C-alpha cells in the first residue's frame, strides 16, 4: 500500500488521465484499509462470510421461487424475468458493497462532527465520503446475481456481444443513478442532521425495481420512470441486455445518470457551504 507514491509526487498540473489514475489509486488504498479494518476482528469476519453465503443462498432460492411457475411477468418471458431478477440481485450487491457502507456513515459523521476531518483533506470531498469504505461480504450475492443472469441470458436467442456491452454501460448508469439519488438524500443531513430513516425510504423504493416496470399500472410506471427513476435501475439495463435496445431509453438513462450526478455535486457544494460542524 502506498509504495508507488513517488510517482504521484509531481504537484503541478496533471492530465485527466493522471487525475483518474490518482483517484483510482486512492480508492484502492481506501478499500484496502477498509478490508483490513474488517479483518482485525476474525470472529466477526468469519461470521460475515457465513452470513454472506447464507444470504446468497436465500437470494438464490428466492429467485427460484419467484421464477418457479414458469409464467411470464408483465409481458416478460420466464428467462427474461430471470435476467431482470439476477440483475436486481447484482445491483443490490453493488449497493451493499460500495454505497451503503459510505452513505450510512455520512449522516453520522455530520452529527458527531468527524466530518471536519473529511472536509480538511486536499482531495475531492464528495469522492472521499463516497469511497472510503467497502463491504466485501456482498461478494457471494454478486456472484449469485451474475450466475442467474448468465444462466438466463444463455437461454435467450436475442442476446449478442453488443447487447451485453450495452447492458454493462447501462448497469453502470443504473448504479450511478442509485448513488446520486441516495447521496442527495443523505446530503440533506447537513441541514437536518439526523436522516438515517432516509435509508429505509430508499430501500423501500428500490424494492420496486425487482419487477419490470411494465407490471405496474400506468400511473406507477410513469412515476417510476420520470419521477423516481426506478425503471432505469433494472428494467432498462435488462432490456438492453436482452437485445431489446431502444435508443431513446438508452440515451435517457445516460442523460438521467449524468444529470443526477451534476445535481448531487451542486447539492454537496451547497451542503458543505452551510456546514455548521458540531461542538468540539
Amino acid at each position, binding site marked *: 500500500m502506498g509504495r508507488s507514491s513517488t510517482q*504521484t509526487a509531481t504537484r503541478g498540473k496533471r492530465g485527466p488521465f493522471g487525475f483518474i489514475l490518482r483517484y483510482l489509486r*486512492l480508492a484502492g488504498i481506501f478499500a484496502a484499509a477498509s478490508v483490513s479494518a474488517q479483518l482485525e476482528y476474525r470472529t466477526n469476519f468469519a461470521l460475515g462470510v457465513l452470513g454472506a453465503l447464507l444470504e446468497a443462498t436465500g437470494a438464490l432460492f428466492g429467485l427460484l421461487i419467484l421464477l418457479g411457475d414458469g409464467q411470464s411477468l408483465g409481458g416478460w418471458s420466464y428467462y427474461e424475468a430471470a435476467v431482470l431478477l439476477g440483475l436486481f440481485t447484482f445491483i443490490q450487491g453493488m449497493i451493499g458493497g460500495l454505497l451503503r457502507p459510505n452513505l450510512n456513515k455520512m449522516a453520522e459523521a455530520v452529527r458527531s462532527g468527524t466530518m471536519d476531518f473529511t472536509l480538511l483533506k486536499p482531495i475531492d470531498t464528495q469522492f472521499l465520503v463516497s469511497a472510503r469504505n467497502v463491504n466485501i461480504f456482498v461478494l457471494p450475492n454478486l456472484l449469485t446475481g451474475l450466475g442467474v443472469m448468465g444462466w438466463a441470458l444463455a437461454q435467450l436467442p436475442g442476446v449478442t456481444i453488443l447487447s451485453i456491452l450495452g447492458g454493462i454501460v447501462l448497469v453502470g448508469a443504473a448504479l450511478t443513478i442509485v448513488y446520486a439519488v441516495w447521496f442527495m438524500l443523505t446530503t440533506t443531513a447537513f441541514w437536518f442532521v439526523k436522516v438515517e430513516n432516509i435509508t429505509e425510504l430508499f430501500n423501500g423504493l428500490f424494492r420496486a425495481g425487482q419487477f419490470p416496470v411494465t407490471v405496474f399500472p400506468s400511473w406507477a410506471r410513469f412515476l417510476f420512470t420520470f419521477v423516481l427513476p426506478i425503471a432505469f435501475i433494472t428494467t432498462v439495463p435488462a432490456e438492453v441486455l436482452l437485445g431489446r435496445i431502444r435508443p431513446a431509453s438508452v440515451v435517457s438513462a445516460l442523460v438521467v445518470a449524468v444529470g443526477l450526478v451534476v445535481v448531487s455535486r451542486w447539492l454537496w457544494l451547497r451542503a458543505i457551504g452551510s456546514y455548521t460542524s458540531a461542538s468540539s
Partner: protein
Amino acid sequence: MKHLPAHTIQVAGLQKHYVVHEKEPGLAGSLRAFFHRKTKLVQAVAGVTFTIDPGEMVGFLGPNGAGKTTTLKMLAGLLHPSGGSVDVAGFTPKERRAAFLKLITLVMGQKQQLLWDLPALDSFRVNQAIYEIPDDEYQATMREFNTILELEGILKKQVRKLSLGERMKCELAAALLHRPKVLFLDEPTIGLDVNMQVRIREFVAEYNRRFQASVILTSHYMADVTALCKRIIVIDKGQIVFDGDLGELTERAGARKVISVELARLVTLERLASYGQVQSVEGLRARLEVPRQTTSSTAARLLAELPIADVTIEDPPIEEVIGQMFGGHRPATADMVRAQEPQEVGS
C-alpha cells in the same frame, strides 16, 4: 507562491452567527418543538480582527462558548464566515483549495481522525496518499516524529487499544505528516496527564522551531499557553478583549494561585479562611486562593498547622481568571465546580 503576504494570517471583522433551536425539557417539550420550533440567533463570533506572523505562536484564551473554536474553524475553512474577511497564507480558507489545505492542519483534542479499528500506521499511509507525500519525505518525517514523540511500539497497535495520551501523540503525527505551515490546535492536551501534556507541548515547540510554522493554540491549561506562546488573544462573547504579550496577561491573571487541600478531618471555615480566600468546600476538600508571592509560605503553613492529607498548587482556571479580568463577575462559590465543566454554546 508569487504573492507573499506579510502576515500568515489576516483576519478583519470576522463574524459567525448560527440559528439554533431551543426546547423545553421532556417529551412534551420535544413534541412542542417538533411542530413549532423556536429559533434564535447566536452570535458566536462578533467581529474579530488580528494578524499572525510566520512562525508566530499565539494562544487563544477564553471561556467555553466564547467563539475560539468557531474562529479556528473559519480559519481552517470548515465554516463559512457570516461576515468579515479571512486570509490564511494568501488563500481564502472557505474556498478550500487543495494547495491551501496542504498548508494547514487542525487538531481537535476531542475528535479523532485515526481509523479506530486499525493501527495508526495504516491511517498514516492513507494520509500519505491523500496529501501526496513522497515516500522519502514520509520516511524522514516519520523518523523525526518517532524520536520526538516516542511513537516506537505504539504505531502497530490498534488505535482503540491505545491510551488517551498515546492516541493523542498519533493524532498529532497524523495531522502533521504533511508538514503544514499553519497549525490550528484546539485543546490538544485535553484530558491528558501532566507528563503527556509536557510531551505534547515540547513536540509543538519543536515543530514550530523546525518548520517555522505559525501556531494558534487554544487550551484550558494555562501551562500549555504559558509554555508555548508569547502572545495571547483573549476572546469573550465572540469579541477580542485582550491581544498582547503573555507577560502582561500573567501579571494580571497569575497574580494569584489556587491551593487545593484534602483534609484528614474537618476544620472550621474560619480557620481555613485565615490562610486565604476560600473558593469552595466539598466534604474534606477545599480550595483556597492566595497571592502568588505567598503561595509557598502559605502552603508550608497549611501543612504544618492543619491536618492535611494532600495538597496541590495550581493556577486558577482560565475561566475564572478571565472572568475576574474582564467581566468583573466573580464566579460564586457554588458555581466554581460547575464553571469547569464544558458548556459550549453553538461553537
